[in-house]
């Protein structure tokens, strides 16, 4: 972990709220979340569908689709506020300062252009380079992401690449302008397992070399375990637990995080039955009062149904659960 206290975080999110306006009122997709990512650090954002992890990623890159909008809080990139930038300004930040990797590499690449053209376009939009220098840089980037014979492959079209190779091209595109932050939303979900590991290793290596901060959004806890330094577990639009990866995965404290970890079938455990969390994620339109997890929680008590727990520091992590504040009061 690169935890240098004097270092300013690359990304700093404070009390972020994202609402989706509907005819029946505003749905709170993100309800007051805060986190930082230091240079060279990988923050894993995990949660199940509907937890708000992808919306968080979209908010950071300024790509929330209407009717969604940021309704409160602030996002700072290297100290500069970016959540209130105009569309044109934000477009320049995206690509230059924030690189993006999405789930499906085929939809992130234009099928009608050679990948070399797409790479040089991105490079020249953000860096003052001649066409020739940009092409040389594109070839270097392709070599960096492990594409064999980049001098020839640069003139291929996206359909001529396999899924894993395409995702490598997308990573090259994301890193083309030397961004400070890369937002990767489910970068390995569309890939086969044997290729997943290659892509994870690649993202990790390249970002470590360049000191790029990474926000890795995924539902795959295995990917998080191997890649992330810090993990934020999301549930119903809130971060319920956040801390170093070994703590969260090895000894989760929040009952939801605990349930989540033991629900995953492992390649080493010999349990005959999986631990299951009853029920499913509540809909945003009908969030329960108090702690949003209380109807599914096996440790639920009176206060959980009425008062929403706030994230409180517990050692190196922050946990939003009455269980621990209650214990303290009792002792």
């Amino acid at each position, binding site marked *: 972990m690169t935890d240098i206290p004097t270092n300013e975080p690359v990304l700093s999110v404070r009390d972020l709220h994202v609402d989706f306006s509907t005819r029946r009122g505003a749905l709170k997709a993100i309800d007051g979340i805060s986190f930082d990512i230091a240079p060279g650090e990988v923050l894993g954002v995990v949660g*199940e*569908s509907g937890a708000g992890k992808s919306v968080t990623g979209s908010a950071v890159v300024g790509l929330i689709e209407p009717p969604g909008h940021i309704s409160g809080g602030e996002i700072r990139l290297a100290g500069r506020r970016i959540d209130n930038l105009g569309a044109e300004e934000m477009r320049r930040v995206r690509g230059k300062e924030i690189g993006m990797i999405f789930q499906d590499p085929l939809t992130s690449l234009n099928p009608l252009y050679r990948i070399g053209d797409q790479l040089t376009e991105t490079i020249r939009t953000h860096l003052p380079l001649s066409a020739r220098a940009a092409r040389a840089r594109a070839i270097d980037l392709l070599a960096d992401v492990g594409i064999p014979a980049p001098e020839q492959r640069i003139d291929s079209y996206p359909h001529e690449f*396999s*899924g*894993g*190779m395409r995702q490598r091209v997308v990573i090259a595109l994301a890193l083309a302008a030397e961004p400070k932050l890369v937002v990767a939303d489910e970068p390995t979900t569309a890939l*086969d*397992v*044997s*290729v*997943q*590991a*290659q892509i*994870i*290793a690649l993202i990790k290596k390249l970002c470590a070399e360049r000191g790029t901060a990474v926000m890795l959004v995924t*539902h*795959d*806890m*295995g*990917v*998080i*375990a*191997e890649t992330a330094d810090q993990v934020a577990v999301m549930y119903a639009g809130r971060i319920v637990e956040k801390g170093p*990866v*070994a703590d969260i*995965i*090895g000894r989760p404290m929040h009952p939801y995080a605990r*349930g*989540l*970890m033991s*629900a*995953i*079938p*492992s*390649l*080493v*455990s*010999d349990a005959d*039955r*999986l*631990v*299951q*969390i*009853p029920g*499913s*994620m509540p809909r945003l339109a009908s969030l329960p009062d108090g702690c949003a997890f209380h109807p599914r929680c096996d440790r639920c008590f009176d206060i959980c149904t009425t008062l929403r727990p706030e994230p409180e520091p517990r050692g190196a992590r922050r946990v939003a659960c009455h269980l621990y504040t209650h214990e303290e009061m009792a002792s």
Partner: protein
Amino acid sequence: MKQDFVQIAELRRTFDVSKPWLNRVLEGGEKQFLKAVDGVSFSVPRGKTFALVGESGSGKSTVARMVVGLLRPTGGAVEIDGVKLGPQARGGAVKALRRRMQMVFQDPYASLNPRWRVGRIIAEPIRAFGLATSKREMDMRVDELLALVGLHAADARKFPHEFSGGQRQRVAIARALASKPELIVCDEPTSALDVSVQAQILNLMRDLQEQFGLTYLIISHNLAVVRHMADQTGVMYLGRLVEIGEGRDMFRNPRHPYTRMLLQAVPDIAAIGATRTAVQGEIPNPITPPPGCTFHPRCPLANDRCRREAPAMRAGVACHAVEEGRGEAA
């Protein structure tokens, strides 16, 4: 020896992927065939779970579809409880077999008719096979099935869109159980579900297996799910079975280089900050598979023989290196 409930012998399926006739005439070029499944044999004893794992394009779903009869095999035979379903299989015996096998699909959003109420969806197999004599009997059976999968009788009046993904998969399982089948083929039953819900569905499938003595054929790319569920596992690569292993043994002692590679590649929560040798290469184009053992371009143990000659399945593994004892040292 008593015959196993499901017997699959030398199953083959090729797909014609040629360009249209006119293009072939004008531009030249031969007919092209894709061998999706190339000589797969295995058997599943009654009441047990067999799982097929492999990456996309390995042919595992094609096998599943041939077992339930959604696809006709190009060659080989599927034999279920002594009844042969092959390229030539027809007639009453096959029809009677239909009731005894059912399928659960990956995507519970696509496999349930959005315009039908759940009660009608679940009643459909009962009606189709004429398993109820009166409306009252059918309704009772639907209530019973809903209760079995952990839903309420009142849910029968709802439409699929009113349910979450996990609940829909429960409906799909209830429908599969409606005809009182003995074999259920599950194609990626939990891939579309969140992990907390996946655990619910996997536990439910186990409970139902115990209760009704069901035989499962599970298709999955998720090795951890397969390890959790299967009594026997077959690993597929480019249309062929490369290894068949018992229970958790195969996960403890994988023998085929591809199985080893797969097991090493899976990101696991027990492996925090793990560094390991990344897997080399990707699955080749199945239209023009490599000669000999199709895995040889990615295999660290490949030699000349592997490049020439396709290995046969011997004692649960199809690999020259393992056979010659070169595999164990690595």
